[in-house]
C-alpha cells in the first residue's frame, strides 16, 4: 500500500468512527433512555418533599416500608430514611435525642411522662440538596443531579471511595455492601417517574410526609409550603437542602 493510500484509508476510518460516535451512538442512547423512562420527561417536574413533625407519631412504618421497597439491609447501620426522637426534659436546656434502630421498630417508652416538657419525632431522609456536596466530591461523577431535582447514584460507575458519604452533612448516605456502591434515598425515583408517590409517603398513617411536584401549584407539596412556616436542615452548610420541615426546633440538625 502506498503512503497516500494508507493516509486515505486511515482518514476514512477515523471520520467514519467519529461520525458514528457523534451522530449515531447518542441517538441510540437517547432512544434507550426514553424507553427506560417510559415517556417520563424530567424537565417537566421539580419534585419537593415536606415533613410535618406535628403529625409524626414515630411508628416507624415509613422506615420499614422503605427497607422493604428498596432492599435496604435490615441491620441498624443502613437507612434510606429514619426517624429521630427529640425529648426535652423539665429543667434541661438541651434535648435528648435517639433513634433506636432508626425507628424501624418504633420508639419504646424511655422517659417518665411527668419528666417530659415536650417531645417530637423528626423523620429524616435524603434532602436532595440543590447544591449537593455529594455530587461535588464524587471523583468520577457517579453521583449526579437530575433535572427534576433528585440526586441519584450510578451503580455501574461508582468506585466505592465513600467520599460522598463523608461529605454528606446529613448522614443520609451509606455503603451498600451488595453492590459495593454508595446508596441513598432517591425519593423512590423508580416510583415517582411512574406517577406514584414514594413508599414512605404511602406508608405514613398520619400523612406526616408530603410529596409532590413544585411546578404544580395545586400539588400537596406546593400547598404544604404555602400553608406552613417551613424550615430546612443545616442551612449554614450551604447545600440548600430541599426537604421542608414544619414543627421542628432549631436544635434539630
Amino acid at each position, binding site marked *: 500500500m502506498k503512503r497516500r493510500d494508507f493516509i486515505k484509508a486511515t482518514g476514512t476510518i477515523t471520520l467514519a468512527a467519529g461520525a458514528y460516535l457523534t451522530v449515531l451512538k447518542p441517538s441510540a442512547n437517547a432512544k434507550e433512555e426514553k424507553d427506560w423512562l417510559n415517556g417520563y420527561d424530567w424537565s417537566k417536574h421539580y419534585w419537593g418533599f415536606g415533613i410535618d413533625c406535628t403529625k409524626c407519631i414515630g411508628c416507624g412504618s415509613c422506615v420499614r416500608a422503605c427497607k422493604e421497597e428498596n432492599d435496604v439491609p435490615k*441491620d441498624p447501620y443502613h437507612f434510606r430514611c429514619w426517624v429521630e426522637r427529640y425529648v426535652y426534659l423539665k429543667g434541661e436546656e438541651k434535648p435528648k435525642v435517639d433513634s433506636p*434502630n432508626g425507628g424501624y421498630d418504633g420508639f419504646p417508652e424511655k422517659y417518665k411522662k411527668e419528666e417530659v416538657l415536650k417531645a417530637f419525632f423528626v423523620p429524616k431522609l435524603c434532602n436532595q440538596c440543590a447544591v449537593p*456536596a455529594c455530587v461535588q466530591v464524587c471523583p*468520577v461523577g457517579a453521583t449526579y443531579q437530575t433535572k427534576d431535582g433528585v440526586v441519584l447514584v450510578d451503580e455501574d460507575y461508582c*468506585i466505592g*471511595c*465513600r467520599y460522598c458519604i463523608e461529605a454528606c*452533612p446529613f*448522614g443520609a448516605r451509606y455503603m451498600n455492601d451488595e453492590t459495593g456502591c454508595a446508596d441513598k434515598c432517591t425519593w423512590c425515583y423508580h416510583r415517582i417517574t411512574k406517577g406514584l408517590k414514594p413508599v414512605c409517603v404511602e406508608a405514613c398513617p398520619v400523612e406526616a410526609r408530603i410529596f409532590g411536584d413544585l411546578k404544580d401549584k395545586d400539588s400537596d407539596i406546593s400547598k404544604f409550603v404555602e400553608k406552613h412556616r417551613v424550615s430546612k436542615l443545616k442551612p449554614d452548610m450551604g447545600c440548600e437542602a430541599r426537604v421542608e420541615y414544619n414543627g421542628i426546633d432549631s436544635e434539630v*440538625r
Partner: protein
Amino acid sequence: MPVDLSLIKGFIYPNEGWFQWSFMLVIYPYITGLVAGAFVVSAFYEVFHDENFKPVSKLALICSLAFLIVCVMPLQFHLTHHLRGFEIFMTPHLTSAMAGFGFVYLWYLLILLLEIWFNFREKIVEGAESKKPSFRRFILRILLLGSHDVSEKAMKTVHKVAHILAIIGIPSACFLHGYVGFIFGSIKANHWWASPLMPFIFLLSAVVSGVAMMYVLYWICCVIIKREPMNHKTLNSFIQMLFGFLIVDLAFEGLELLQIFYAHIEATEPIKELIKNELMGTYVWGQAIIGSGVPLIILIFLEWIIPWSKKHLRQGLMLIASLFVLGSVLLMRWNVVIGGQELSRSLLGTFHFTEVFGTHEGVGVGICLLILPFILMTIFSLFLDPWEYEKKEVN
C-alpha cells in the same frame, strides 16, 4: 465496618454507625507526606546547594519515588470496586478534590522521574556501559533511553535541567501534599476537618516526617550498614531542619485548635468532648505530649546543650527524636482521619472506632504497605546506587 453501638456517647446518625474511612485512609496521607518530605530534603542540596545534605540528597530522591509508587495503593485497597479506580484518571469529575489529586499525582510523578533520570545520568551510563553482563546492566541500558553522551557539555546541560526540575519539584511536592490536606479540609460536613489551615498542617507535618525518615535512613546506612561514617555537619543540619519545621508545624496545629476554641463555634463543645474522650490517648498523649513534646525537648538539648564532641550521643538522641516524630505524624493522620469520623455530624455525640487487623482495609495490609516502600527503595538503590557517588567524593 460496623461500630460497637454500646460505645456510642450521645446521638449519632444511624448511618454513621458504619465506619467508612479506616486505616488505609490513615496511611495514605502518611505515605504521601513522606514523599513530599523526602523531596524537600533532596531539594535543600539540589536547589539551595546546602552541601550538608549532599550525602542524602540522591537517596532522598529514590526514597521519594518508592513512597510515591506506594502512596496510591491504600486508596486502591480502600475502594470497593478496585478495578474502577482508574476511572479517576480516565473520566475525572473535575469538581471533586479527589479527582484533582490524580492529576497532581501524575504531574509530580513525571517531575520526579525526570529529576531522577537527570540526577543519576552518570551512574546510569556508567552501569550500562559496564563490560560485565548483568541484570543491572540490562535495566540500566533501558534507562539510558538511547543516550550515552556524558561529555562535559552534555553533563552541564544535565545539571542545569536537574536544577530546574528540582526548583519545579519543590512547589509540586508541596502542592501534592497540601492537596491531600485539602481533600480533608474541604469537607464542610465534618467540623474536625473543615479548615483552611488543613493543607498547611498536612504539608508541614509531611516535611517534618520526611526529614525524620531521611535521618533514620541515613543513620541506618552509616551506623548499621556502615556504608560511610556519619557526617556531623549533616547530622547538625538534620537537627536544625527538624527543629525548625517541627516548631512551625506545631504552631499551625496550635493555631487550628486555638481558632476552634476561641471562636467558640457550634462544634467547639462537641470537639472538646471528642478530644477529652475518644482522642485522649492518641491525640493528647500520643501526638502532642509524647510524639511532639519529647522530640522537641531532645532537639532543644541537641541544639544548645549537648556538645558536638559527643557524636554517638547526638546520633542516638536524634534517632530517638526522629522515631518519635514519625510516630507522632502517623498519629496525627490517625487523629484527623479516624478522629474526624468519631465525631457525629449531628454534633450530638461521639463513638469509638475499633481497628481490625485482617481485612483488605485492616492494619495488617496497612503495615505491609508501610514496609513496601522500603523494599522498593532498596531495589532502586541496588540499580542506581546513590551511595557510591558519595563514597567516591568523600574518599
